[in-house]
């Protein structure tokens, strides 16, 4: 047994640990990120009462139209949802994307008033007042956005409000490729 190596061991351990810490600090990793198991899996079931009066309830068929679909969970009481709202409007109006919006833990009338005031980007809108549907989607809060491709597979899962950069660099290229 080489004692010298033994004496060096603590220093080497420190070097490894410090390397990880430095990497972590420089990587811009978000320690609060929980990851998603939904990506690259068949989209979870969709079954929700319609948010807008007089429309049919939402079903999983909406996700199997042969076109990519964006599913966005939101709430009127959620401030970050306000921040991403203009981007949703842009996707709907300029890009003609199909967006399914689901109001999470939100009284339907409040969600409707919110959409009326700010503009309604959703092709289909549903409500999940008790949060049980959202659990199937692995939702942790609002806003969260899923991109489902033409084959009904989840391609993206955002745990945060989407940004201009997400839109241009990731979402739009995938949507266009899907068409």
């Amino acid at each position, binding site marked *: 047994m080489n004692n010298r190596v033994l004496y060096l061991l603590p220093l080497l351990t420190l070097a490894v640990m410090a390397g990880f810490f430095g990497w972590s600090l420089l990587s811009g990793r978000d320690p609060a990120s929980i990851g998603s198991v939904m990506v690259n899996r068949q989209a979870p079931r969709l079954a929700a009462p319609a948010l807008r009066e007089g429309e049919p309830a939402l079903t999983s068929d909406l996700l199997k139209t042969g076109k990519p679909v964006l599913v966005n969970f939101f709430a009127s009481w959620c401030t970050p949802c306000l921040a991403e709202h203009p981007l949703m409007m842009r996707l709907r109006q300029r890009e003609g994307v199909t967006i399914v919006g689901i109001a999470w833990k939100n009284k339907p009338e409040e969600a409707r008033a919110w959409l009326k005031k700010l503009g309604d980007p959703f092709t289909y809108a549903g409500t999940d007042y008790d949060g049980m549907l959202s659990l199937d989607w692995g939702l*942790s*809060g609002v806003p969260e956005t899923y991109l489902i491709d033409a084959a009904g597979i989840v391609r993206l899962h955002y745990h945060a409000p989407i940004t201009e950069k997400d839109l241009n660099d990731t979402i739009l290229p995938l949507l266009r490729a899907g068409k």
Partner: protein
Amino acid sequence: MLVLACVAFPAFAVEPSEMLKDPALEMRARTLSRELRCVVCQNQSIDDSAAEVAHDMRIAVRERLTAGDSDKAVMGYMVARYGDYVLLEPPFKPRTLVLWLGAPLVLVVAGLLLFFAARRRPVVPAAPPPLSDTEKERLQSLLKR
């Protein structure tokens, strides 16, 4: 903001309205809740957490149990939705080998080293290393002198 939601209203965790009538089932639900992590909190189980999503998860656990699921099936249900992240006890898998076996390994290796160190008797100082060529030459020259 979300973080504050977990601790700001402590009395919110496990509300009476959530609890099941059947005490045995409720007991199982509480035990499982303590092993599931609240996904928006920091190291809190859903049993302790006041977050909205923790509330939903507690309800879902109870719904599954009422529907007759086994404990394992309930945990599987959560893992299918939130991944291994949701388990406060990480599963024993290749990627968690170091986590589970690291400390026992240290114990065993260090224990063995100590065991052999303890058995070692004081040794006679080892014979000096053989002379190198240059040293031999020097010795020769010294002897010749």
